[in-house]
């Protein structure tokens, strides 16, 4: 009996260590964001003061609110566009036999492995040529490189696992493939669409390299770039309170979404990962 008590205690101690390690940095960012003035430079492990001054500052000053809106617009457009293209492509890749299908799937898979830096120079040229430099459109355009392969891949694996029978009745009735997609598959695919859409949203929301390179003015930046470039009057005076407040604003919606949809997200991640 004592042996099992020791084992249990050790197990729960391990669990506690995992939870604390995972959560503490975010918790500390939150309590820092509510501290202002010199209070921020005294190290406290528990929330001892509560002031929303940092939040007021970050929203009111500069272009943070604008950048937040930019991030929302860009991510929403990226999700819509990539889901639209991915649903039809996934239908073709999963339900229709044609030559070169495996090769195409492999190509899509390898595009998702592309280092972003490898296309940076070429994309820079394309984006300037199309007049998209320093616009939100340029970001939406460039983000397709990582959201599209991923959404196509996950939706293809999802559609492949649906039974043939569901299509048969529609085919016998003479329905066109487009009708089959919109009437037969879409109603069944909501769970998969929510998952992949959410993962694509998070990827677009977090993207940094393209956003940093393809925008030049503070008004067109997305929030990761704004947070990365926050500096005080000198390089050594980072306004930590404001940075933490901005970080919390950017992260809280994601954490809430992820916790609500955690089962779906885990299945989506492992579908994209294990099978990918």
């Amino acid at each position: 009996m004592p042996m099992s008590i020791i084992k249990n205690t050790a197990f729960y101690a391990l669990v506690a260590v995992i939870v604390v390690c995972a959560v503490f940095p975010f918790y500390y960012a939150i309590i820092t964001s509510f501290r202002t003035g010199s209070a921020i430079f005294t190290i406290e492990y528990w929330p001892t003061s509560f002031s929303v001054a940092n939040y007021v500052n970050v929203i009111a000053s500069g272009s943070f609110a604008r950048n937040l809106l930019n991030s929302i617009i860009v991510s929403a457009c990226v999700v819509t566009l990539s889901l639209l293209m991915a649903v039809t492509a996934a239908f073709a890749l999963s339900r229709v036999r044609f030559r070169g299908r495996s090769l195409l799937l492999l190509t899509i898979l390898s595009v998702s492995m592309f280092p972003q830096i490898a296309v940076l120079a070429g994309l820079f040229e394309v984006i300037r040529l199309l007049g998209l430099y320093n616009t939100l459109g340029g970001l939406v355009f460039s983000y397709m490189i990582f959201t599209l392969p991923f959404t196509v891949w996950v939706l293809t694996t999802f559609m492949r696992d649906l039974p043939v029978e569901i299509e048969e009745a529609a085919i016998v009735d003479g329905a066109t493939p487009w009708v089959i997609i919109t009437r037969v598959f879409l109603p069944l695919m909501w769970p998969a669409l929510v998952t992949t859409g959410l993962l694509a949203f998070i990827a677009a929301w977090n993207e940094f390299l393209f956003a940093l390179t393809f925008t030049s003015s503070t008004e067109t930046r997305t929030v990761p770039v704004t947070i990365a470039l926050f500096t005080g009057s000198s390089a050594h005076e980072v306004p930590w309170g404001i940075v933490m407040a901005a970080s919390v604003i950017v992260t809280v919606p994601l954490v809430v979404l992820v916790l609500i949809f955690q089962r779906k997200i885990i299945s989506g991640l492992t579908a994209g990962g294990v099978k990918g």
Partner: protein
Amino acid sequence: MTASPTVRSELLRQRSRSARLFLLPMILALAVVAGWPLLRTIYFSFTDASLTNIDAAKWVGFKNYLSWIQLKSGRTIYSGLLVDPAWWNAVWNTVRFSVVSVALEAVFGMIIALVLNAEFKGRGIVRAAILIPWAIPTIVSARMWGWMLNDQFGILNDLFMRVGLIDHPIAWTASSDTAMIAVLIVDVWKTTPFMALLILAGLQTIPGDIYEAARIDGVHPVKQFFRITLPLVKPALMVAIIFRLLDAMRIFDLIYVLTPNSAQTKTMSVLARENLIDFDKFAYGSAQSTLLFLVIALMTMLAIWIGRVKLDGGER
């Protein structure tokens, strides 16, 4: 299907026609956003292009990669990427970072996955908790940890000094000895959850009766792990490791924000962007991007080749 052969083949033809139509937008989009830019990057690496005047790029052959001049004295002086110490430093940093971070993530990920695979009260809380680092944007985690690792006001120095691990505050991100450690801490914290979830998915495919049988035979749990769990979870583990390795090789965001000026952490992506955009060595940066692409492409092909069986097995 019971339709007659002619109707059937007509149907099939219609289907493959619309399949082609359905694939077109996606293929076009990927061609414009990935294929063409990649070709242009490779082309630029053989030119003297500069950021301000891309159009005036002239072909210079392999000069950006390697060139040499023979001096009158008979000595040959080499120049170019392949003899650039800054480049090889970045290559070494990238390899060191990737191998160490992925190894640590595999170990910690395995531990967390084993915990999550056990039945216990509060499992849902642990799963939710480990999703938090994954959900936090890389830039935000770099900033959060930058604050925690701050030399004067950082909570980590305070914590380590209280427990007696260190006797004086460490400038984690600024000091050349610890910059890489700082980057590794943040990356392992951020990406171990992903690894854990992939390994967990593999663990859940192992049938419970195997452990039942092992327990009845009195096999020690440690032996169970090495003889049963590890071999059975190995395919999932290998996929997760390869996936993460490819991802780690291209790391940019975290290092750009956490340790911007440290030569000890400058990776291939960071160096290439610096040359492309900041230093106006567009062609030279393109050459670095091309080499990084080649390395990752080779690794991807190797990975796909290893995973081949799995890919074919999954297809209908």
